[in-house]
């Protein structure tokens, strides 16, 4: 069986996988990082978004072997111990979730946006979220949370 070695949330991980194993399967089933969700499994909903080498990608549409040597960040790697990441804190503060299923992907997408666009407008945020679907349709508070989270991230620098 092929073996894949990558860095996940700052820690080296090595696992035996099949060539067809998806990155999200490696994360959830072998590394136990179940914060990354599988929603549609067809690359549309964005519940599985993680960062690979600093960019948001859909981990249901990437083979684990393609992530060989990559630096992967999942929702579990955002907080600093018990202190929430500013984007997570903003989602809590602004109630940027209803059922919470899409939230890990939303937060990971939002953090990527805030890294690339320090002061996103509401329009920027809504356009950015075209690959993240909230089936509860709670977008208003998600957008508010991302705006506040991006501001907090910019302020923390």
């Amino acid at each position: 069986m092929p073996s894949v070695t990558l860095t996940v949330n700052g820690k080296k991980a090595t696992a035996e996988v099949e060539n067809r194993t998806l990155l999200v399967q490696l994360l959830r089933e072998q590394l136990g990082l179940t914060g990354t969700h599988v929603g549609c499994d067809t690359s549309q909903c964005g519940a599985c978004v993680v960062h690979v080498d600093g960019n948001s990608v859909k981990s249901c549409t990437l083979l684990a072997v393609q992530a060989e040597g990559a630096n992967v960040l999942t929702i579990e790697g955002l907080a600093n111990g018990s202190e929430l990441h500013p984007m997570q804190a903003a989602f809590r503060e602004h109630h940027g979730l209803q059922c919470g299923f899409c939230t890990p992907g939303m937060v990971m997408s939002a953090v990527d946006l805030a890294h690339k666009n320090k002061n996103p407008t509401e329009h920027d945020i809504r356009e950015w979220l075209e690959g993240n679907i909230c089936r509860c349709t709670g977008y208003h508070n998600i957008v508010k949370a991302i705006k506040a989270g991006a501001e907090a991230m910019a302020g923390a620098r």
Partner: protein
Amino acid sequence: MYNFDYSRPKSVADAVKAIAGDGDAKLVAGGMTLIPTLKQRLAKPSVLIDLGGIAELKGVKRDGNAVVIGAMTKHIDVANSSEVKSAIPALADLASHIGDPAVRNRGTIGGSISNNDPAADYPSAVVALNATITTTKRKIAADDFFKSLFETALGADEIVTSVSFPIPEKAAYMKFPNPASRYAIVGVFVAKTGGNVRVAVTGAGPGAFRWKEAEAALAKSWNPDALKALAVKPDGLNSDIHASSEYRAHLIGVMARRAVAKAG
């Protein structure tokens, strides 16, 4: 997903060696179409040859009156390229609206045109800008490259290495996107290059095609109103749950006029 062998060559020469003689081998670029296809068991490759590790296929450069984009250049890198933004802003704009941010972080121009999805954005730019596709074997003109639904002029062991876009005087792309996938229900790319006008339509037919009546009208007068009297016939256009062929025919006119207005 059926299982497969996997290889990640470091050079184009090694990729050519890997695919030669194996009719069931498949190349994977960004994988934004291929991996979902594999998941649905619609393909059963013997080996997946991942082009992601080949540095020589990545990057954008200016070459005289053209912008040359390496086949493995991601949509996000075309969208953000200062070279593309200054020389062909319409192309950077098109790339910035493909799929969604996570898709643009993986998807590539070479993968998009080799796959030739009838609703993909890039083929319209390749045709309207009269780009030249360079492969491991030859150079192919845009008009000869796209054949039909998911079909191109590429041979089984031929790999796209770059796409060269002549720099236009004016160009713009407008699409009416599917609200879920952001694929073009209809997209129209208009370009005026060296006094020559080309109008390419994607999403509406079995592949990107030129709207020659519009090209003739715009060559006489580069103005959205020059297209007002033209009507596209719905015969042979795509019809599905998203839009009827009549609606797509109507959208071609609307998107073309908006594109000309946007190009200025």
